[in-house]
């Protein structure tokens, strides 16, 4: 039995029924991980020893029959920008090589309490800056569906690992699409919760006002199970919302008759690959056949989303990443003659090209004389983009859109032109700017056999609506039964 292919819900059920043990499941997943890792390169570190300790502990808990959660004994992979007290957290950057945080992120603490088995930390674009995972300081992760292609980014390692059955589920982080885009490219489900729904404490900051941790899973129900465990107010994160957490799994299975689906015309304009457009439109038609009501809507400020995002995110990043200067932890350049040289050499040697580019742009837009012209303008544009969504919610319950303009591109294809790379974020970044929640679910394959995702977007704290719609579509479409050729 290939138990590593089980979904989280199935594996949880079999563990609870004592058909399998967590040790068996962990063994199977780690075995799969080791056999596919040479091809996909999804992991930065593998925690075999501690994983088995945690698996045995989970088995003991299950045997005692007491306090068991749907995640007890489940092997999960963690994006390497989420702090773990028992494993290095590098953000795929040389500047944090071998950095061991002395504390767990809030989400890790929650999962630990739930009895999760942590199998390893996944590759990503350095400090989550990128859309292809090519910006990792360590390795290039490959798309399990076509190893010549990128898995998307920045949570590329997590998406590839789940797609390849090298983890039952994974955590990623989404600042401008970093969970949803790789989910789309790799054919898995990726959720970006409402800003404030999941604690950011212990998530290494990139763009603090945009960052949100989200799960990558094999199907929609697994995503709901994960959110149940992750969501909730955290007194250690001032931006986390004190809003009650419903049982998200109970949203899966409700019918979508009469659900209004907004189709933003700006998201189907020029630049979209015809195959992607067709598959997304097919998915909407499928939902219509289930009783949903498609209506055309407009998000008129969409064209400002990319410049607005890159100004906000880079401004915040330039300050968030200032702490990596070699003074207290992480990499420190050798042979610096004075303190200024220590800072500049450390950062010159420790950061990759894309990170440096973003720090410089962010520093520029915050500089005296440019703050009003760039940063403040972007903040105003952000308000307008948010307003677009707020107006849309008067007409619709959910928005359907593509996740990315085209299926996975080839490794190296866009590396020379950062702007083209930035443009691939066009459909995902608006909702980070607006704080809304969104999910990417597989909606078919291109002629080349590459997965394509459908994006559903809902108002703040309306994750239940997302799960209801996504689950209904997924169950009737059934694409999730296809596996990559590994």
């Amino acid at each position, binding site marked *: 039995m290939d138990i590593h292919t089980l979904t989280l819900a199935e594996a949880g059920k079999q563990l609870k029924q004592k058909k399998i043990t967590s040790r068996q499941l962990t063994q199977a997943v780690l075995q799969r991980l080791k056999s596919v890792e040479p091809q996909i390169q999804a992991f930065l570190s593998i925690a075999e020893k501690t994983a088995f300790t945690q698996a045995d502990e989970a088995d003991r808990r299950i045997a005692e029959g007491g306090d068991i959660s749907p995640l007890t004994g489940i092997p999960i992979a963690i994006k390497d*920008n*989420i*702090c773990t007290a028992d494993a290095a*957290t590098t*953000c795929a950057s040389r500047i*944090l090589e071998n*950095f061991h*945080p*002395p*504390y767990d*992120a809030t989400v890790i603490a929650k999962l630990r309490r739930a009895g999760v088995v942590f199998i390893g930390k996944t590759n990503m674009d350095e400090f989550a800056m990128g859309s292809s995972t090519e910006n990792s300081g360590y390795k290039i992760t490959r798309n399990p569906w076509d190893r010549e292609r990128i898995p998307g980014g920045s949570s590329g390692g997590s998406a590839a690992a789940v797609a390849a059955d090298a983890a039952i589920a994974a955590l990623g982080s989404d600042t401008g699409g970093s969970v949803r885009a790789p989910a789309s490219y790799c054919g898995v489900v990726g959720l970006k919760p409402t800003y404030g729904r999941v604690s*950011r*404490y*212990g*998530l*290494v*900051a990139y*763009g*603090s*006002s945009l960052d949100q941790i989200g799960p990558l899973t094999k199907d929609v129900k697994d995503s709901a199970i994960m959110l149940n465990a992750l969501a909730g107010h955290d*007194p*250690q*994160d*001032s*931006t986390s919302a004190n809003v009650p957490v419903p049982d998200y799994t109970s949203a899966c299975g409700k019918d979508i008759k009469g659900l209004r689906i907004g189709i933003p015309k700006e998201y189907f304009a020029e630049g979209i690959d015809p195959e992607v457009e067709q598959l997304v439109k097919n998915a909407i038609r499928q939902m219509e056949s289930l009783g949903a009501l498609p209506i055309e809507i407009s998000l008129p400020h969409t064209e400002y989303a990319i410049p607005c995002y890159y100004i906000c995110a880079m*401004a*915040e990043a*330039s*300050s968030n990443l*200032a*702490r990596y*200067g070699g*003074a*207290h*932890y992480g990499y420190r350049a050798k042979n610096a003659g004075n*303190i*200024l040289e220590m*800072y500049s050499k450390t950062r010159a040697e420790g950061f990759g090209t894309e990170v440096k580019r973003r720090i410089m742009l962010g*520093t520029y837009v*915050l*500089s*005296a004389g440019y*703050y009003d012209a760039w*940063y403040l303008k972007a903040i105003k544009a952000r308000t307008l983009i948010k307003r677009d969504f707020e107006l849309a919610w008067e007409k619709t319950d959910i928005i359907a859109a593509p996740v990315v303009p085209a299926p996975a591109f080839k490794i190296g294809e866009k590396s020379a032109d950062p702007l083209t790379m930035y443009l691939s974020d066009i459909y995902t970044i608006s909702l980070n700017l607006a704080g809304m929640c969104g999910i990417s679910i597989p909606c078919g394959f291109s002629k080349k056999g590459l997965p394509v995702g459908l994006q559903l977007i809902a108002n703040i704290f309306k994750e239940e609506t997302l799960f209801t719609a996504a689950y209904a579509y997924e169950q009737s479409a059934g694409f999730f039964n296809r596996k990559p050729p590994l």
Partner: protein
Amino acid sequence: MEFEPVIGMEAHAELATKTKVFCGCSTAFGAAPNTQVCPVCLGLPGALPVLNKTAFEYVIRTAIALNCTITEKTVFDRKNYYYPDLPKNYQISQNYACIGYNGWIEINVNGEKKQVGMDNVHLEEDAGKNLHPETGGAESLVDLNRAGIALMEIVSRPDMHSADDALAYMETLKNLLQYLEVSDCKMQEGRLRFEVNISMRRKGEQKLGARAEIKNLNSMRTALKCIEYEIKRQTDILSNGGKLNQETRLWDEASFCTRAMRSKEQAQDYRYFPDPDLVEVHIMPEWQEKIRRQIPELKDAKLARFIADYGLPEYDADILTSSKPLATYFEQCQKFHNNPKSISNWIMTELLRELKCREMEPDDCPVTPRHLACMIKMIDEKTISGKIGKQVFSEMLTTGKMPDVIVMESGMSQILDEKEISAIVEKIISENQDTVESIRAGRDKAMAFLVGQIMRATRGKANPQLVNQILKDKISIK
């Protein structure tokens, strides 16, 4: 040509909160380096700040007391600059929406009342301390115990025009902060620090000259010296037809002068922007009102109460309430022993003299209110004389021992036994017959000489009233 100085001040006061402003670490002074730290104040990746409500309320309290307009929607901003004592390489501060704006404080400069305007009052986090080895080694050390302690910055308008103005301002502000119970203001521990902005202009002109901003002033005395030095330096340059540039200068304690640190052109661009890790704080009128009601008794009210409740002369009450810690010291003494005037006398003479020469705050004095009250009680009960009291006081100051212990150990207790005193009086009379004769002849002043002899013979322990009485009796009987 006559020039007048224009002086503004920035005060930084560490707030008296038990924990730091954005995390739960202790703020206790003097702990071993880097023992009061956590992921937040160490600036570790992923850690996030959470605002200390008490610190925030202390700043509102101060802003109210400084007659400021309170901002309804305040935000925190990041001030970006690189320095090893600042682990995140940005300081969480306030720039775009401070807690208070446009206030004023009244100061008394040699009897003349003046108003100094307040530009703003805001909350920020303190930095750690860099320790450079005195041996001049290549490595410096960083202690982050102080990093993240709540720091209130109070920025005055350039409304002061002399070193006296500045001194009165510093003293009045320190006094107010202590009365508000928002900071203990211990300058020797760096809990209150001043920076001076100073420029010169021709008398009668409105336009401000190029200002020097002077850092590294660790006491009021230093600030005063620095202002006097700068007035002279800038006046000399201007009088000789020179030009001044806007610059930051550093006070050099060793050579008693200021040195240029960086010019306006080299000034740092702090790239302030709202900190996305913290949320807007709305200061609603009801909250303001609640804080206003929590303002403790201030000097004027306390002074009136000291006169009414303790029957103290206004002169005494004014001195005792000149600082909050002193007033507290007095009231604590009073709790142990009820004799307001005597306590007041001892505080105004012995205690204040010692505190001043030791540059010490009353609550750091080894002679605690309990020590002093206990000693005064011994005087009142005639266990010791007032004169012996002074010896006991200085003994308490050096040893910290309780007065009864000191008196017992050194046998200082008063001789009240009339027979014992009589014997000594007789001995002195017999040894000084000439003096006795002259007293009998009408030279009353010679009595003092005999009393002195008797006190010396008893090492000051004989009760002076009894000595006088017995001496008079013996001389007239004979």
